[in-house]
């Protein structure tokens, strides 16, 4: 089959590799119909995630058609169209039973920091991802959600990661109605966090980024106020001043480990690898939010450590909530929001490429060129 493969930092290509095969009775093989490039794929591309092996196929956002079924699969049939959560979750372990599917203990031998994830290095289990013509999907009766008839694949595609992740980001902010919410990062997850904050009754939502076209997009798509942090002297003071000198009730970090905004953090984390990326936004969240407020972290950070002001968080009495998204428990609810017109998930797609052009798409997305917000790839057979 044709598949995107990692060749080393900043280099991917599309090449032939063997088709995936059923390796467990609860597996299915999916013929991929749509797959997206996620912001967190860029951390892999940039060589920041340990145990990313040459030849690895990225891609944890995809839809597909069931092509082949394992002997124990009972809920799916050949030809079913499905969208797949990025977490590989068994549905039966201590964590899955409690709804914490991102912490499943039955899918990743390599690390306790996360469960198995498609196409996200061997640190998350060593599963090839969906930026390919075919993909192996374990625990197929638990994770995949059938796409309803009449619904396009692209409308459902983001139920597998970024839409639930953005929603969970807002949810962890514990919005009860009328709160002021600042979302750092106007990328796809940030946009969905903004929309979700409105759904939960936020009183005021502000987006912060340094890429002006993304802020303009956020104004149109999520109806939020925007701040370009490069155009203010001190983003923390600016945001505090907006809210009577105290700061907002909730800050959401939808950026993660490759944040702009601090040369020192970028040199330490991205250049010298002395910490796991640049936690600039996390620091801003802690410094900006009001005392007793909530910081919600859905931007991705990796092991082993980061320089962050935990003392400030402690003394301000903050609630810090964070997790990889427990995607499966959100899918049905958010599917309903899409169908009833409350979330236009497809509306964030700005670029479509064939799978063969995936390296070009990565370059465009990583360099934030041509107004790119979200890239979707289509394999040749789809």
């Amino acid at each position, binding site marked *: 089959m044709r598949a995107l493969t990692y*060749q*080393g*930092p900043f280099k991917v290509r599309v090449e032939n590799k063997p088709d995936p095969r059923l*390796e467990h*009775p*609860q597996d299915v093989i999916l013929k991929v119909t749509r797959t997206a490039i996620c912001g967190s794929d860029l951390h892999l591309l940039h060589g920041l995630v*340990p*145990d990313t*092996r*040459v030849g*690895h*196929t990225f891609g944890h956002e995809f839809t597909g058609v069931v092509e082949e079924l394992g002997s*124990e699969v*009972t*809920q799916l049939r050949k030809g079913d169209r499905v969208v797949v959560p990025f977490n*590989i*979750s068994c*549905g*039966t372990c201590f964590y899955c*039973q*409690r*709804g*914490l599917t991102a912490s499943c*203990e*039955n*899918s*990743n*031998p*390599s*690390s*306790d*920091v996360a469960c*198995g994830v498609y196409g996200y290095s*061997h640190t998350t*289990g*060593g*599963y*090839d991802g969906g930026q390919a013509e075919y993909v192996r999907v374990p625990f197929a*009766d*638990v994770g995949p959600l059938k796409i309803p008839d009449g619904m396009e694949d692209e409308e459902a595609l983001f139920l597998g990661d970024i839409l639930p992740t953005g929603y969970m980001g807002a*949810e*962890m902010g*514990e919005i*009860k*109605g009328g709160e002021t919410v600042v979302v750092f990062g106007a990328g796809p997850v940030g946009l969905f966090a903004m929309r979700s904050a*409105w*759904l*939960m*009754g936020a009183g005021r*939502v502000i987006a912060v980024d340094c890429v002006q076209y993304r802020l303009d997009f956020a104004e149109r798509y999520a*109806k939020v106020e925007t701040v370009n942090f490069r155009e203010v002297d001190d983003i923390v003071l600016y945001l505090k001043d907006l809210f009577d000198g105290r700061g907002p009730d909730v800050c959401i970090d939808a950026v993660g480990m490759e944040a702009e905004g601090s040369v020192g953090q970028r040199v330490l984390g991205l250049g010298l*690898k002395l910490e796991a990326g640049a936690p600039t936004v996390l620091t801003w969240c802690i410094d900006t939010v009001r005392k007793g407020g909530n910081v919600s972290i859905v931007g991705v950070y990796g092991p*082993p450590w980061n320089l962050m002001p935990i003392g400030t968080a402690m003394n301000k009495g903050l609630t810090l909530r964070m997790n990889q998204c*427990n995607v499966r428990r*959100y899918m*049905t609810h958010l599917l309903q*929001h899409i169908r009833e*017109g*409350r*979330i236009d998930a497809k509306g964030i797609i700005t670029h479509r490429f064939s799978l063969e052009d995936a390296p070009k798409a990565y370059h465009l997305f990583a360099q934030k060129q041509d107004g790119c917000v979200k890239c979707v790839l289509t394999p040749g057979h789809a």
Partner: protein
Amino acid sequence: MPDRPIPGAAADLEPSSRPGVPMERAPQPMAGARMPIRPQHSDVRVFKHKGRAGFPPVFGTAQPPRGLSGLLRKVAYGYPDHWARHWMILLLADRVDVWEHRLARAAPWAVPTAGVLALTGVAWRKWARA
């Protein structure tokens, strides 16, 4: 700011209407889940970090470890994942992996080219002495 900035604003105002509230719920198997889970069999070498008690029933088998990078990964997985050296050795192994692949890719033309250059050099020296 308008009262209803987006369609459906405040539709999920009630926390109990949100799928992730409470974050940890009363334990019950998820829909479609099957127990017990049969263990996956594989001939491919897969590492387990030392802090983990047993092997999970399902795992990925993509890109088995090999070469010097594979040896480094074996060393890394000998440490639990809360040890920094586990991650630092893996990052080193990743860079070694890239160079191994570059060398392997270059070998079909680099080895003959080096041979031709060496022979040419020997011939040149002999000719110059004569």
